[in-house]
Structures are given as structure tokens and as C-alpha cells.
């Protein structure tokens, strides 16, 4: 078995027992990336030299210093997370040459834990999309079937972990951008509670919804990485000031007495029958192990997608206004005056999907439309929060499909934005309510992975990880896919 095939928690143990070195692991992962990435297309930037240098440094430190359990473990980073001195493009022409002069909060944490950054991972441009087809640079393919999309927007992060070209990775989730690709690629992805991971240095798409989170091939790896990145940051006014437990140490697959809520709205029209069945089978397995199934109602779910696209696009239209060719990134070659420079730069620098969202956001905020769209969407969001609160009076976690279907084929939805948007129906409510949710593999339909989503109360990540751990105990940890 090659080193890249092991999970992070196994590698951590092997490192501490001196059965291998970080340099060997890093080399194995980089080789794997070299061997697979032409087909998978997960990486935008591979930093081979820096990664090996860092790995050797960590190897040298080992034995002399107490190291973090993830020290020396390779990690891939979504390309919208600012990495000091390392290209951060958001998969956009607009930032094709942008090198941040500072590290994101999570990168400071990752570096402090002595993890080895192997590179930056592909995504939908500015995290807008559900297939990673919106990247300016390349398309990422699903390792389970190269004709299929890996999901999005963190498609590179999920595909790399699934293919073994990364052991673990970081992504971001604004409306499902971690959970959907995790589900499509058959890996574990956690979207943490809003405020538990600092957004400082995450290039903003929708500030009130964005959250950075971990990917892993196992729940344990995901818990370990989440423990690294969570925590209060006084640079982020929306960061929660609280203490976090050691999620890994507290992992427990015992579901006796766990009340699992099943909302009928997530099992209705628009959700593939075989996906529903696969998810419900997994839930029933948990019931056999002592969990209790409770039927709940979340009636505002039917408006969630609409509210989500209004709120996220409104914020995006403002967040992406700073890309104007003045301070960084792309600037058009020829222009006559300031307005011409702005318009050409932005028209040439952004892809069509980003333009559509900016225009939708501009529209819903514009004079005369604000109340009918933005304000209404915010009120719907409040209803969604209320319904979740009352549901969590009856259950501990809510179980749903992470996606309405398994991965679709490349190009299948690209011409029809609303059809593409519908892929987010199972995930957006969680961002609107600021809740944590996890997607864990629970079987396959037609050889393509299906993800079970657990949604929890704010800051109930431990319960989610434990629930996912119980599912993993039934279906097994994921292994790198042959491509």
C-alpha cells in the first residue's frame, strides 16, 4: 500500500512511530498528483519544492519538539483561501496573477500545526457554481467517473482527496460547496457553524453565508482538521468567541438514543428516488443501532433556494466590486478612460456565471426592488431559522440527502443556470440558518457515491461528527479511487 492511500490519522500514527517520514508521505502524494491530475484536474498550483522543504523541516523537528498530530501531513487548499506568497486566483482570470501578502487565519493555523501545503485546488470561479466547470483555468473531473463533475464549488478539494492527490483539504461552503462535492466524490466534508472558523483571508463570495471547512476520506481526519482551523479570531467580527473541545478525542460512534429528524421536504419532488432510498437505508441502519427516528417539518425549505440566490448574489455583487483593475489582478490592455477601464476589466476578467450573479445581486439591491427581493429573502431566512429551532426541539440531528442526485455529467447543466442552481436544494438552508452540517458517504447509486447530510444545532459539530462516524463504521472509510 502506498503512503498516499493512508488516512491522515493513520499517517499521524506512523509518523509518531517513525515508520515513515513526512518527506516520504509528501513525495508519495505529489507523485500521486503528478500521476492523476492530468485526468482529474484538481490542482491549480502545485508547490512541490516548498512542500518537500517544509516536510524535511518537520522531519527534523520530530523528536526534538512536541508536534501537532497533523504535523508533516500534506494538505491541499482551495484557491480562494489567501496563502502568503502563493498564487490565490479564485479560479478567475481576474486574479490570474494575484499573490496575497498575508495568510488567511486558517493558513496561520495550518502552518502553526506544521502541515505541508502541497498546492492550491480548483474551484468554480469565486466559488460560484455546483460543478467546478466555472473555473477559468480548467475543469475538474470526478475520480469515480471522469465524465462526471466533482460537484462544486470546492470540486478540486473533494476530487483531490478522493483521488489520493491530497490526504485532506480545505474548502469553503456558501450554499453547499463543501457538502455537495464531498457527496459527489464519496468523501467526508464538514460545513462548520457560521462563526466557528474565521473568514479572515477567505476571498468573500457571500459574507453572511461563507464558511471554511475540512475534507477527509474519514470522519476522523475531518475532525482532526476541523480541530486545527476552528477558534476565535478577533480579525473577524462574525467569529464566535468560545472554546472548542478536541473533536477527535471525543469521537464516538454510539448512536443509542440519538434522535434523528427526517424532514419530508428533503425527500420529496426533485430528489432522486434511489438517492432517497440509499440515504434512508443508512438511517435505518442507525435505527437498528439504537437511534430513534422522528418525523419533522421544515416547510419554508421550498423558498430556501430562492432566498439563498437573492442573499448570496446581493452580497456577491458588493464583495466582487473591488475587482476593478486598480489595485491587483487583471487590468484590460486598452481603454479610453476610467469607466472604460472598469467595464472592460470586469467584463474580460469575470466569467459568465459570475456576471450573472453580480447582475442578479445588483438587481435585487437596486432602487425600487430592495424590499420585494432582498428584504423578503431576509424574512424568509428568519422563518427558516425558526423552523430549524423548533425542529431541534424534537431531534438532535436532521438527516437528509446531501444532494438531490449523484454527480451529473460534465456539460449537462451548463447551459441552464436555474437547473444548475437546483443542485443546491438540500444544502442551502444550512447556510441560511448558520448551522453546521456534514456529508458522509452512505453507499452508491449506479457506482456513483451518495452522501448523507447531517444537520445540527449551532456548535453541535461533535454530534454531527459522531453521527457521521457511526455511518462510516457501517460503510467503511473511503479509499483513494483508481483513475
Amino acid at each position, binding site marked *: 500500500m502506498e503512503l498516499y492511500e493512508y488516512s491522515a490519522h493513520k499517517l499521524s500514527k506512523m509518523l509518531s512511530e517513525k515508520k515513515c517520514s513526512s518527506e516520504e508521505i509528501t513525495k508519495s502524494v505529489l507523485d500521486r498528483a503528478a500521476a492523476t491530475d492530468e485526468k482529474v484536474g484538481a490542482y491549480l498550483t502545485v508547490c512541490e519544492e516548498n512542500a518537500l522543504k517544509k516536510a524535511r523541516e518537520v522531519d527534523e523537528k520530530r523528536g526534538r519538539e512536541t508536534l501537532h498530530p497533523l504535523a508533516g501531513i500534506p494538505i491541499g487548499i482551495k484557491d480562494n483561501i489567501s496563502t502568503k506568497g502563493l498564487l490565490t486566483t479564485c479560479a478567475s482570470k481576474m486574479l490570474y496573477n494575484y499573490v496575497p*501578502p498575508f495568510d488567511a487565519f486558517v493558513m496561520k493555523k495550518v502552518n502553526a500545526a506544521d502541515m505541508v501545503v502541497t498546492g492550491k485546488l480548483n474551484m468554480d470561479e469565486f466559488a460560484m457554481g455546483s460543478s467546478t466547470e466555472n473555473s477559468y483555468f480548467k475543469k475538474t473531473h470526478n475520480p469515480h467517473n471522469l465524465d462526471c463533475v466533482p460537484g462544486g464549488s470546492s470540486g478540486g478539494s473533494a476530487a483531490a482527496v478522493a483521488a489520493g492527490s491530497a490526504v485532506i483539504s480545505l474548502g469553503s461552503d456558501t450554499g453547499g460547496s463543501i457538502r455537495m462535492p464531498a457527496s459527489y466524490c464519496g468523501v467526508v466534508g464538514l460545513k462548520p457553524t457560521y462563526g466557528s472558523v474565521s473568514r479572515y483571508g477567505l476571498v468573500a463570495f457571500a459574507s*453572511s453565508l461563507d464558511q471554511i471547512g475540512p475534507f477527509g476520506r474519514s470522519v476522523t481526519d475531518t475532525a482532526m482538521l476541523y480541530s486545527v482551523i476552528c477558534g476565535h479570531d478577533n480579525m473577524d*467580527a*462574525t467569529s464566535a468567541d468560545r472554546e472548542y473541545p478536541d473533536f477527535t478525542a471525543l469521537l464516538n460512534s454510539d448512536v443509542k438514543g440519538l434522535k434523528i429528524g427526517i424532514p419530508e421536504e428533503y425527500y420529496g419532488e426533485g430528489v432522486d428516488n434511489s438517492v432517497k432510498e440509499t440515504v434512508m437505508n443508512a438511517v435505518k441502519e442507525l435505527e437498528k443501532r439504537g437511534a430513534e427516528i422522528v418525523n419533522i417539518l421544515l416547510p419554508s425549505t421550498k423558498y430556501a433556494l430562492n432566498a439563498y440566490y437573492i442573499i448570496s448574489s446581493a452580497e456577491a455583487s458588493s464583495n466582487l466590486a473591488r475587482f476593478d483593475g486598480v489595485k491587483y489582478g487583471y487590468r484590460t490592455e486598452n481603454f479610453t478612460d476610467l469607466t472604460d477601464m472598469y467595464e472592460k476589466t470586469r467584463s474580460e476578467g469575470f466569467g459568465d456565471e459570475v456576471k450573472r450573479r453580480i447582475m442578479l445581486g445588483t438587481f435585487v439591491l437596486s432602487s425600487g426592488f430592495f424590499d420585494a427581493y432582498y428584504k423578503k429573502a431576509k424574512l424568509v431566512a428568519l422563518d427558516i431559522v425558526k423552523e430549524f429551532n423548533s425542529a431541534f426541539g424534537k431531534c438532535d440531528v436532521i438527516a437528509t440527502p446531501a444532494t438531490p442526485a449523484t454527480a451529473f455529467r460534465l456539460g449537462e447543466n451548463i447551459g441552464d443556470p436555474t437547473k444548475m442552481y437546483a443542485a443546491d436544494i438540500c444544502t442551502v438552508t444550512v447556510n441560511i440558518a448558520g448551522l453546521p452540517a456534514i456529508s458522509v458517504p452512505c453507499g452508491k447509486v449506479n457506482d456513483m457515491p451518495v452522501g448523507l447530510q447531517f444537520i445540527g444545532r449551532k456548535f453541535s459539530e461533535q454530534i454531527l461528527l459522531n453521527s457521521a462516524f457511526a455511518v462510516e463504521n457501517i460503510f467503511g472509510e473511503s479509499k483513494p479511487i483508481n483513475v
Partner: protein
Amino acid sequence: MEYETIVGLEVHAELNTKTKIYCNCKNAFGLEVNTQICPICTGMPGTLPTLNEKVVEYAVKMGHATNCSINNVCKQDRKNYFYPDLPKAYQISQSDIPLCEHGYVDIMLNGEEKRIGITRIHIEEDAGKMLHNDAFQGSLVDFNRCGVPLIEIVSEPDMRSSAEAKAYLDTLKSILQYIDISDCKMEQGSIRCDVNVSVRPKGSTEFGKRVEMKNVNSFSGAMRAIDYEANRQIEALERGEEINQETRRWDDQKGVNVLLRTKEDAQDYRYFPEPDLTTIYVPLEKVEELKNDIPELPNAKIKRYVKVLGLSQIDAELIAENLPRCRLFDECVKICGYFGKDSVSPKNLSNWVLGDVSKYMNETGKDIADTPLDANLLCKIVELIETKVISNTSGKVIFEEIMNGNTDIDKIIEDKGLRQISDDSAIEKIVNDVLAANQKSVDDYRGGKTNALGFLVGQCMKASKGQANPAKCKELVLKYLNG
């Protein structure tokens, strides 16, 4: 037809906090271009704002000082527009819930008091600075001023002339200085204003269409801009034209304004709540505490000076308009009152403060705080004069010595022999000697040339080396001449 001018003002004042409003960069003026900047105030992707607590406190203080109600629960909003000096392409400001609203200030004009309504006061960030020069390959942007904290003070359209507007601006400025939240340096642009002008036939109660003027950079410029615009509108109405609601740009050098944009091109700022910042909450105890911090304000001071201390209106205003001056005066009054030195009258203190002290400050350009003079020393000088220990002339000598760093008044009096002679027999001897030596002048006086008296008294003073009490000399000379 007779017309009435209606003026409303939007005043922007830079706050003198140590750091900027949303980042911990130094808040300073005049430093080398682009040296007081960081990733946050230059709008780098992924950066987030954090609100400076002093900015909130200062704005609440201004709210108290202008009799506003305080919205102790409020938020910030984004104002979206593109310009190179605005790196994020939105200004963080406040829209529907300002920190302070519904207040007023009383202004004095020609001895009459008038109340001007304050619509609202809100906090926001300043933009950077555009630099223009033929040697440049375009316009240059200096980001140092980006994120400098501002309060915007919006008045009701309560002013009826440029003189009232000037009085209002002067009042605001002195309040800002009194509560020490702004340096109020016009030449550095730390107070700027936008002017709204409309006219209507006298007697009418309806408002005319209002014109907003930008680029008004001084208080005197505001007067010129208002007068010009009011005339322009009146002339247009006289010609039978209609006034359009529009924005015009004031050119103070040419003394004219030009159309900037019409109502139809009005910018659509697409305000929405700033998602990177959450609720601003100032506990009511803190609101009260800040209220108690407000010192006696200029209007109250002037009233007290006139009514309690018996100063003239003009002297009271002169003292109150300058903060260091009124601080010195108030302290002197307090010291003299405290020690029961009834002999030191406020009137004499005011003469000194407005006379020698102000003259010295004006001539040297120094602040009182930068000189050795303090209230104790000034009180002592005035007291020594009033109790006839020294002459007024000697008082001036002592004042000069103090300003040169010699603050031991008793020693100055001894060293320079400034003690005044009030002993009758000593003065009588001097008078006798002088009269004997100036028989011609004695004859002149007796022959009807009464101005010889002044000469003779002067000779007595000279003979006493200035130490004789002049009144006493005069009394004795007269006694002899008429005797």
C-alpha cells in the same frame, strides 16, 4: 418678488482617534503616500473590517452634545459605488439606523439665538485621495486616508441665509473641539461639507427643488457657494425657468458651480446591511457615562459668562470660541472664586485673557499649553494689580518674564523693583520734587493748559521708576496745583 433661501448642510468631520475605523492602521495626516495602509484599508481580497470602539463613543458624544437621541442598537450598511479612491468599491456607512438622530444646536447670529435641527449623525469611513499632476501617467491614488473615521452630521433645512450657515458651521466646529473628537483642521480637510440650497418666494411654506453642492472645502467657501447658488436659482425663477433637483460642483476659485449630475443620473448606491459586521450595541449605562463626559458647551458657557460673570456678550463669545482660551479663563475664575479673592474680577481676567494672552498666542502661534503660563500665575498677576501691589505696566513686565520661562513672580518683583509705592509721604516727597523742578508746567496748568497735568504725573512716575501708584500721584499733583 422677494425670495427666501433655504439651506441644509451635511458636515463630514474626521475623528481624532489613534487608529482608523476598521483596521489598526495609524490615523494620521500628511505622512508619505501609501505608508499608513494595510490589507484591510486597501481592500485586499479576503480582508474583514473590525469596528473601532472609540469611533462609536465619539459619535455618541457628538450626539449628546447636539441633543440627539441615541440609537444604542444599530448597524452598519454598505454604500456601493465605483471610484479609484474607494478600494472595496463600497463605503461602510450607516443608512436607515444612524447612531444618533433628532437633535438640534442653537446658533447665535447678531445677538439672536436660533435653533437648527440635526436630522442624524452617523459613522462611516473616509476614502483615499486622488493626486493629479501633468507629470503623472494618469491620476494617482494615495490610500492613506482610506478608513479614517468620519461622522456625518446632517442638518434639517433650517437655515435661511449663508450667514446662518456659517454660524451653524462655527458652532459645530467649536462643539467638536470642546468634546475633543476632531482636530477640525480645515486646511487638512478634517471638516468638509456638502451644501443643499433651495429658494422659495417669501411667505411660502413649500420647499423649492433643492440643489446639492459638492466640493465645498471651507466655511467661507460655504457662504460664497450658498450665495452664488441662491442667486442662480432666483435669477432662473425670475426668467421663468424651473429649478431642477441636481448635484453641482462648487469651484471656489472661479466662484461658480457647474452641473455634476441630474436627478435622472442619481447614483443608485444599493445600500444593504454590512454582513461583515454585526449589531452595534452600546449599553445604556455607557450611553449615560458618555453623556456625563460632555463638558460645558460653548452656548452654555457664553450665557454663564454674561449672566453670572457679567462679561459683555462680545467678550463672552470671544473667550468661548477658543478652547484653550476658555479653559484658561474658566480655571482662573475657579481659582479666584475658590480662594475668595473677590478683588480679582472676571472682567479684569477676561481683559487679560483677551488682551495680552491672546496677543501673545497670536503673535507666536503657540498654544497656551506650550508656554509656562498657567491659571495660577495669571490670577496672581491680576490680583497683584488689583490690590495695587504692582502697576498695570509692571504686570505686563511680569507676564513677559513668565513667557520667557521665569515663573517666580515674587522674585521678579524684587529683582526688578516693581513693588508699587502707595505710601503717602514717600509719594508726596516725589511730587514736591517734581513740581519744584517743573515750574513752567505748573504755570502752564494754572494758565489753563490742563494737559500739563499728564506731563507732571508722568514725571512723578518716572522719578519713582514706575513704582508709584499713578492714581495717588495724580491725586497729590492736583491737590497741589489747585491748592
